[in-house]
């Protein structure tokens, strides 16, 4: 499979990258890890005239402590997310989700930001980003702006990013001490989720104080199971089975999975 011809640009600052995007017009594309974009190019499902490689923007990699929240650089690879101590301590769910993404080769190239920008509803990182109230920090010709995850994911493969904007950081509130689990159902190891559920819970003395539940691949974007979350607040752990039924009301296979996997994700999150 051979992609169509394109020009290749390699900016060294975010501002330069933004300028390049503006100069090249709508047919230019950012390339991060290339793990989603390159297959798309090779199948000629897209033929951008220019690729702007943000792999040289070291300012976009790594995780920083920012008081009540973490700032995760858009170019932080899945591999780095898996091993980062701040993420482990304050946003464990992200680590557990990332552990299930693809294979080691892909995790060394693919990026946290790229996954969110690609906005594939079957992608694993959308649901936890939504459930954890992540905020996207975006650079564009007019400067920086912040967009909460709930507004960022618009539709299949569509985000709130304008064509001349770049995701630079993701702010994730700290969930220190929360239990977390990602329950993913896929058919073979390298396949995408049929349905998956990301859950984080705060339990004190056997009572659930707060819960976050995000569903992967049940709609045109990530879905937050707010009914499940609210049904759990102030309840004992034994309320999970009942609450999980609120994850979906349909009788199709995926509806069933949403319910079953929500129950399993919450149970595992509580357990540890």
């Amino acid at each position, binding site marked *: 499979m051979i992609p169509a011809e394109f020009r290749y640009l390699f900016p060294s600052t975010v501002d330069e990258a933004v300028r390049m995007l503006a100069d090249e017009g709508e047919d230019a594309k950012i390339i991060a890890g290339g793990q989603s974009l390159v*297959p798309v190019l090779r199948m000629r499902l897209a033929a951008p005239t220019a690729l702007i490689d943000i792999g040289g923007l070291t300012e976009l990699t790594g995780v920083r402590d920012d008081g009540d929240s973490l700032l995760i650089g858009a170019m932080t690879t899945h591999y780095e997310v898996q091993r980062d101590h701040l993420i482990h301590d304050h946003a464990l769910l992200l680590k557990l989700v990332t552990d299930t993404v693809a294979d080691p080769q892909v995790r060394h190239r693919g990026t946290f930001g790229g996954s969110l920008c690609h906005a594939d509803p*079957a992608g694993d990182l959308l649901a936890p980003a939504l459930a954890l109230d992540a905020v996207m920090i975006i650079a564009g010709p007019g400067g920086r702006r912040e967009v909460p995850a709930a507004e960022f994911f618009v539709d299949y493969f569509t985000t709130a990013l304008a064509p001349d904007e770049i995701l630079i950081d993701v702010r994730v509130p700290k969930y220190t001490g929360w239990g977390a689990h990602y329950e993913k159902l896929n058919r073979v190891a390298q*396949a995408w989720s*049929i349905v998956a559920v990301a859950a984080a819970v705060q339990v004190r003395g056997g009572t659930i104080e707060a819960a976050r539940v995000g569903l992967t691949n049940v709609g045109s974007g990530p879905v937050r199971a707010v009914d499940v979350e609210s049904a759990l607040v102030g309840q004992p752990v034994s309320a999970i089975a009942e609450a999980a039924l609120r994850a979906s009301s349909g009788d199709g296979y995926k509806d069933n999975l949403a319910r079953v996997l929500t129950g399993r994700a919450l149970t595992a999150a509580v357990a540890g």
Partner: protein
Amino acid sequence: MTATAEPEVGKARLRKEDARLITGQTRWTDNIQLTGMLHMAVLRSPVAHARIRNIDCSRATAMPGVAVVLTGEDFAAEQGSLPCAWPITEDMKSPPAPALAVDQVNFAGEAVALVIADSPYRAADALAEIDVDYDELPVVLDLEEALRDTDLVHPDLGTNKCATWVFDSAEAGSGTNVEDEISSAEVVIERTFRQQRLIPSFMEPRSVVVDPSAGMFTIWSATQIPHILRWMLSAVTGIAEHKIRVIAPDVGGGFGGKLQVTPEELLCLLVARRMGRPVKWTESRTESMLSGHHGRDQIQKITLSARRDGTVTGLKVELLADMGAYLRLVTPGIPILGAFMFNAIYKFPAYRFVCTNVFTNKVPTDAYRGAGRPEATFAIERMMDELAVELGMDPMKIREMNWIKHEEFPFNTVAGLTYDSGNYEAATARAMELFGYDDLREEQARRRADGSAVQLGIGISTYTEMCGLAPSRVLGALRYGAGGWETASIRMLPTGKVEVITGTSPHGQGHETVWSQIVADRLGVPFEDVEVLHGDTASSHKGMDSYGSRSLAVGGTALVHAADKVLAKARTLAAHMMECDEADVEFASGSFSVRGTSTARTLSDVVLAAHVAHDLPEGMEPGMDADATFDPDNFSFPHGTHLCATEVDTETGVVKIRSYVAVDDVGTVVNPLIVDGQVHGGLAQGIAQALYEEAVHDEMGTLTTATFADYLVPSAADLPAFLTARTSTPATSNPLGAKGVGEAGTIASTPAVVNSVLDAVRHLGVRDIEMPLSPERVWTALQGRKADDAGEVAAGGLGSIDAQGGQS
């Protein structure tokens, strides 16, 4: 020359070929770069059935780097028809099979135009600029529907029915009349199974380079069959066979998928001839899936009759086999290879097999690992379980009652074969012990009683198969176009080193290692002193190539015979050198000696003497080389017992293989490591059919599983740790005692897995689930619904990307 004391045969040698393969030290076909080489890209039909009204190449021709754009019309006069070497019946319908479609396309993926350019990139770019005008025709996809002949794939044939092939034990005199048995039976079980379409997933995509210079056509191809390819390309093009040289360099897997004379091989040759320049074509994975032949795709209606005590009395098999749009090299014969195997290891008194081959607007089918035998084994092993359920008997008991006892070999089967050797009791006993059958049954009972969400199932497959293809006279009787012999040559070099030339064509199996082990033992030379040459028609001048688990049983035997010829001649010369009677010469560990004396000559000394030829016995030719060709007089029949335990999550439908035991009797084992490798890979592919892989077409005939994101090939992460063991009853049809192991794992494992899943959920009211047993199908079956009603969800796919339409 040092003697090898420890026998080589039976040693778990690491493979000679691995270092170069895994360190990138070899040269695959796509790595070949020739001066002035052009690159071919193929435009493929996006529609499954259409008349080609017009092809406009003008814009493509004007693209940078494009040498020429060619269509079927350009080749109509010279491309002939791709060969089908197996006309199974006299009246078989066989449509012309152009390599490049001329006025009609019959499957989505069929080649309709070629761009020849100075780089693969520019060739690919120009494809998008070719404009084809299609007049779409009704698409024929469903086998039963196709037989109504409402719409025709090939209107000129007047029917979609290709051929009907029948075997009947009453007519053949090998058994009684099956209809009589069925009508008088105490128990009759009738089931219909579907063998889904599969896609051979070799690691190296197909690739061809043709160099037309120097008055020869040198063709490199990632093929399993260099010899057959040379013969067939000569037959199709009229190019004299001695002006064609085919080289299969290291080839990265085939599984039957490269047992083919492909349109692209022929087209590269025609283009190279026309342009007078070397041409290369290498496919993408999606191209491979859209145009390389597929496997399986049958509907099997099986009727089994038995007595209430469990004794089987009759077996009737009615098959519909999907040929796809054309007959490729052995397409029509694949289901026929299964005809002799439905009765399997059981003593059916009556048997009837009827196979109807059907044309559809899909990619042609052809050989895929096991070829006919997995289909047969699946059906009979599923039926034995169904019979056990019907009669409330243990499924192993019912097999045991009906199988051929070890003392009954050789055994003439109801399908007309003679099984030479085997011991089903021994393999089964070993498997039951390794598996812990009784404990698992106990756990199963417990989980059933508890109503546990995760249920446990046990699946059995006591399989046999026929391989070591094949006695030439049998192939002739089956109307196959070639013989089944194999050849080997040994060149004894003056320094005592050995070159072995084999007519088999390894493509990942490890023949270089195994052939070296055989020769090392036979001639008493070190393993390292043997070099194995293969896959080049200029050095290995004849052969029947590698498929059907034939290489060792047939090609290895030719090698043994060649080695024996070397030794026989060397013995004569050694006697001459040692001035003794030949009868007094003993040979051991690479050395000839005179019985009862210390006089000795090494084989190396004798070879040198033969080479310099200064003093040879009267009439002896110089040199110590030898050739041998072996035509087996029977197939070989590996068998074994496979046991599979699965855990079925009734809430999600997910199937997890908890343990898998494979005890195989493949006769004498030359290299246990390689045999284990073949078994493991075979199991993976058989399990893949049971649980994961399926080529799916939409109602327009578009393949919707044309990437590895949609066509789910399992990896090591998805498979259990296999517990393998062996029993051995050597084959009597060859001196090695080898039976063949290339396909056994694939043939055995599919029914073991499916039987196991059904065993787990049968008490919940599930009687059958179509393959592959996806979580959704299993869950849907548990809801008491049919999968069709629920509407399958995507397998997972390239995320949610619709991968269709991308072809190059």
